[in-house]
């Protein structure tokens, strides 16, 4: 029995296979905001089936948040997010010069090779909070065995999202220092499946899964917590992670930002222009408040929001008075961490 999300590597399905069932609409934050088929994976697939060009779809495809919720729900097992990234690749990209420059700059930086067996790609948001990053290093234990990679591929992640080709030299600068690692932990969910391809000998995990696997963290989760899963990482490895979080639910009794299809509801709705710091061509301004409010809607019994992603923390703090903590902050001391 093929798993629901299991990809057939030898026969990847694409937009011509879309039967128009609409299950992707139900989980799409872009569709939820617009209630308009043009702003949805089904709409893009159907438009392509009927001869639309990538340029015609450009404005709305740029607004996709790439939360990847559409991937696991597609009954035809179409690689929906792959379709969106391919579309972005085929669009004219006049506004990505800054990103190209960032990648070039990274290529010129000397690369350090790590001897540690575990590497952490912390991502920009975590790097901006050195205390929290340091705390996470302690939580993940054995500082000597964990390397926080200086190059965490943030520019590569953005380039993937923008549909840009990654220069092989740039990729080498990211990957070669990690070759010795047995385990790579990434905070950026978008990078996870790519890291699995680039580092076939290493085990790749999201930071959320890694932290939530720690006993010390689990012990501090409460039944009145709303645990907010980072959608990109979760949907990229849905079949495995749905079981991980189901175990966590049974153990801790907390609520999750999961809908009835067990898809993680994103708390933010930033599309490509917002991630690149640009204004959208179609004037679209994502309403993060709406998404965060929808996650919280009707959950009157929660007393704390626990997030895997720092971007989500900001979104919830904006719309709610309920305390929001990062998963790592559940363990406040070294003693607790060793519990």
């Amino acid at each position, binding site marked *: *029995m*093929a798993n*629901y999300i299991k990809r057939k590597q030898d026969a990847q399905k694409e937009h011509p*296979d879309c*039967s*128009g*069932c*609409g*299950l992707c*609409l*139900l989980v799409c934050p872009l569709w939820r905001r617009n*209630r*308009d*088929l*043009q702003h949805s994976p089904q*709409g893009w697939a*159907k*438009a392509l*089936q*009927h*001869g*639309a060009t990538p340029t*015609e*779809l450009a404005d709305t495809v740029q607004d996709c948040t790439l939360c990847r919720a559409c991937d696991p*729900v597609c*009954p*035809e097992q179409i690689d929906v997010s792959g379709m969106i990234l391919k579309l972005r690749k085929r669009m004219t990209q006049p506004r990505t010069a800054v990103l190209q420059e960032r990648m070039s700059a990274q290529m010129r930086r000397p690369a350090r090779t790590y001897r540690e067996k575990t590497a952490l790609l912390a991502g920009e948001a975590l790097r901006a909070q050195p205390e929290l990053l340091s705390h996470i290093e302690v939580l993940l234990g054995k500082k000597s065995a964990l390397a926080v990679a200086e190059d965490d591929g943030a520019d590569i992640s953005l380039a993937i999202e923008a549909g840009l080709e990654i220069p092989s030299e740039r990729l080498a600068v990211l990957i070669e220092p990690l070759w010795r690692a047995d385990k790579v932990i990434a905070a950026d969910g978008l990078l996870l499946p790519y890291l699995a391809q680039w580092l076939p000998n290493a085990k790749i995990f999201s930071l959320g899964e890694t932290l939530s696997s720690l006993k010390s963290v689990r012990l501090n989760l409460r039944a009145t917590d709303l645990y907010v899963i980072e959608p990109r990482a979760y949907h990229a490895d849905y079949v495995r992670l*749905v*079981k991980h979080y*189901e175990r966590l639910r049974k153990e801790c009794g907390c609520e999750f930002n999961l*809908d*009835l*299809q*067990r898809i993680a509801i994103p708390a933010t709705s930033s599309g490509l222009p917002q991630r690149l710091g640009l204004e959208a061509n179609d004037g679209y301004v994502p309403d993060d408040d709406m998404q965060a409010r929808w996650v919280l*809607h*009707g*959950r009157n019994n929660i007393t704390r929001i626990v997030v895997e992603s720092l971007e989500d923390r900001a979104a919830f703090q904006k719309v709610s008075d309920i305390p929001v903590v990062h998963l790592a902050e559940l363990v406040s001391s070294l003693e607790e961490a060793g519990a």
Partner: protein
Amino acid sequence: MIPETHEPAPVQPGMIGPCHVGPDALIGIKRQQTNPSRWNGQGWQGFAKALRDSDIDLRENRYSLGLFATDAGGTAYGLPHGVVVARSAGQISSLLKAAQQYRVPVTVRGGGLTTEGESVAFGGVLLDMAGMSRVLHIDTDALTVRTEGGIFWHSLAEELRRLGMDYLSAPLNLTSSVGGTLGVGGIDVNSPRLGCSADQALSVQVVTPTGEIVECSDKQNAGLFQRVILGYGQFGVITEATLKIRPYTPLRMHYFYYDTLRTAIEDMQLLNRNDASDYSGILTIMDCAVNLLVAFDSDEREAAFRANWQPRLRGYGEPGFALCMLRRYALRPWKLPEAWYLYRRKRELFPEFRRPEYLRDGLMYDRTVVFSRAVWKFWGSKQMVIPDIATSAEKFVEAVEQGNAVCRKYFPHYTLYCVGIKLRPEHKSHYEMSCIPPDAEGWAYGCEFEPMMDDRVYSRDHLQSFKNAIYDIGVDMGGSYYRFGGMMKGYIRRVFGDEVVDRHLAMKREADPSMILNREVIF
């Protein structure tokens, strides 16, 4: 933009005009088109200008039109001249008034889950109701919800569940829309107890074909309510609905396996007559593996079933059925390919219905998600034909057996889905010329006959002949159909008779003088 076309040659009423929906849909049917001349694009420019003058966003580019070129059936294709995403009753009112004035057809689309082209626009304007899909108010004391008509049942469920509530009954398909379902019926595995989804509506806000915005219910504008509910979208656009809701409960499922359709159907009807279960339905792999599913909302109901009714059921448990199948195919070795198909199908299907994230402590959570995902994954394809028959309880076994013989003749593999529908005597007027057969008392029973395409390509002739053969059974037995619109509308007069159809047509002409609203669906 699509250019204006020339005036077509007039077609006399009663003559058989060219069938633009499916020219090959007429095999064996004398088709009486009550609305024989196809709209030719005349008046579109004036209509488009009127919409723009009213600040209605009318899309006419190829990209926007292509999104709606077909429905879930994937056998009827057509393009509208323009698309409007519904945003408010006022906007729809303006649109319909302009459509009446310029005689432009309006095709209303919810989830687009029709299979006979009912939600496909063959010219004119397509109104996409998904744009109106907000929940307006949930009253957990009165157990009602007020929602916009374009909402998908699943989106409604997502909101209700946050408050521990659930709808009563809805199609086992996540993207059916509330408005569309109220217009045609809506059948769930709890319909044997709670009736069809259309019977759950307490009141609806309707925009009539002439643009009036009217609230109606059994007590207020009751005549319009009777016509709109189960009215196939002929008498108005449902923009809001008040529905009954209930506290949410997970289910405890039981599966019983049969090797004959008759026994399984008789057992299902026994349970329904005696109110012995909260949910029941039959899902088959051809006619060899017949699964009667029975489920309960409470331990008490389940215990009563175990004590009083389970011993009377003639189905097997899983191991018993496996032995039964072994014996059957050991005696018929020439049928081993069929046995192999059954085995493969079982291995695919069973785990999907037992996914651990939906089963906790033996209870099934979110049955609609489980069923709908399985339906799309294992039964869905880009082309689907699902002819059905609805009959009274007494005629049902015979109808299913005849339909099964048709399936065997046309396709190597197929599935049948049977369910009962509890009828509400006070809604008898709603049921006229609908999926509810006229002679049904107490319960109506429906069976869907769905061939498995198995990556084969069938001609539309073949598919249409199959549908006709199934529908002919309904005509012979005095039944009805869930899907009697679109390509199957040729059966309407045959099954309901001229008197009923002409009466409804007269009501339609009065309500919709230019015959613009969903004109290709049944008239």
